[in-house]
């Protein structure tokens, strides 16, 4: 669900870890534990690898020691702010097959949602992900693609173009996204669209900080506990 998924969808991230979104269920954790044991994965930080912490929304961090993947970090999460429950994510996942294996990725809309964090570095990635989708598929747009672009494009020029090309959908969504309402004004409204996109980002980042406030306290508590042991 992280940097590797971004590369496959058209953004580029030099992510040094592998992020996995998993179903938080006891039997699934056991399977994952077995797989991590094969990779000689060691947990390297709090929280412990327990269901309750995953259900809380915390990530569990591992480093592999097996020679073939020595040093590789694996981060595991089961719940992300604003992102649908795992069953929905799984139902609409993207599967990419290569010669050797297949990869199950978060769907692009879910990945975009997961990237709406408080971190600076995630926002340019969202921009790239949606731009890549638009440039790749703009000649064969479907109503659901147009809606995705209208909801998520962060590039003012492209949002204006999509609002013009899909005016009825843009009007229908304009009450839900101020940037779309502004984009209906065309290129004259370019600066307003950019301001609205930035305002969205500021709101999401603040919402993410609020969401994490109690979780960070829990992490701090767990760190204190681990250090005193």
């Amino acid at each position, binding site marked *: 669900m992280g940097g*590797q998924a971004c*590369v*496959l*969808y*058209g953004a*580029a991230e*030099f*992510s*040094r*870890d592998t992020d996995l979104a998993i179903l938080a269920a006891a039997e699934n954790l056991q399977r994952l534990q077995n797989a991590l044991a094969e990779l000689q994965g060691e947990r*390297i*930080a709090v929280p412990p690898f327990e269901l309750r912490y995953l259900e809380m929304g915390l*990530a569990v*961090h591992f*480093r592999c*020691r097996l020679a073939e993947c*020595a*040093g*590789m*970090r694996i981060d595991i999460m089961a719940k992300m702010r604003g992102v649908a429950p795992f069953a929905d994510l799984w139902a609409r996942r993207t599967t*990419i097959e*290569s010669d050797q294996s297949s990869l199950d990725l978060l769907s692009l809309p879910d990945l975009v949602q997961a990237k709406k964090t*408080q*971190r*600076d*570095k995630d926002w340019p990635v969202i921009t*790239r992900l949606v*731009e*890549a989708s638009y*440039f*790749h598929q*703009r000649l064969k747009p479907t109503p659901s693609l147009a809606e995705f672009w209208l909801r998520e494009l962060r*590039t003012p*020029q*492209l949002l204006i*173009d999509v609002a013009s090309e899909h005016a009825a959908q843009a009007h229908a969504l304009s009450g839900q996204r101020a940037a779309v309402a502004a984009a209906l004004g065309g290129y004259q409204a370019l600066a307003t669209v950019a301001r609205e996109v930035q305002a969205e980002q500021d709101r999401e980042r603040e919402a993410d900080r609020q969401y*994490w406030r109690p*979780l*960070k306290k829990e*992490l701090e508590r767990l*760190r204190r506990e681990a250090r005193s042991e």
Partner: protein
Amino acid sequence: MIDPEDLVGPEWAEWYRMTPQERWDASARMWADYLALGGSLDPEPDSQSPFFDPDAPGAGAVDGRPGLRVIRRGGV
């Protein structure tokens, strides 16, 4: 219609035009180069991450090599 080149420049436009497999392969080649140069797999400390722990000890490179380091730097 805006051309990708006009918006994001030629390098990004080329990246966008690749297939997922081509991007995956290109990324793998960059990774191989990075690791061959001694690059570390430890994520860079990210003080904006909710998981950032300022007191966490940095992990050494798994193969004992020191990783990349700056040996000359400009004035800034």
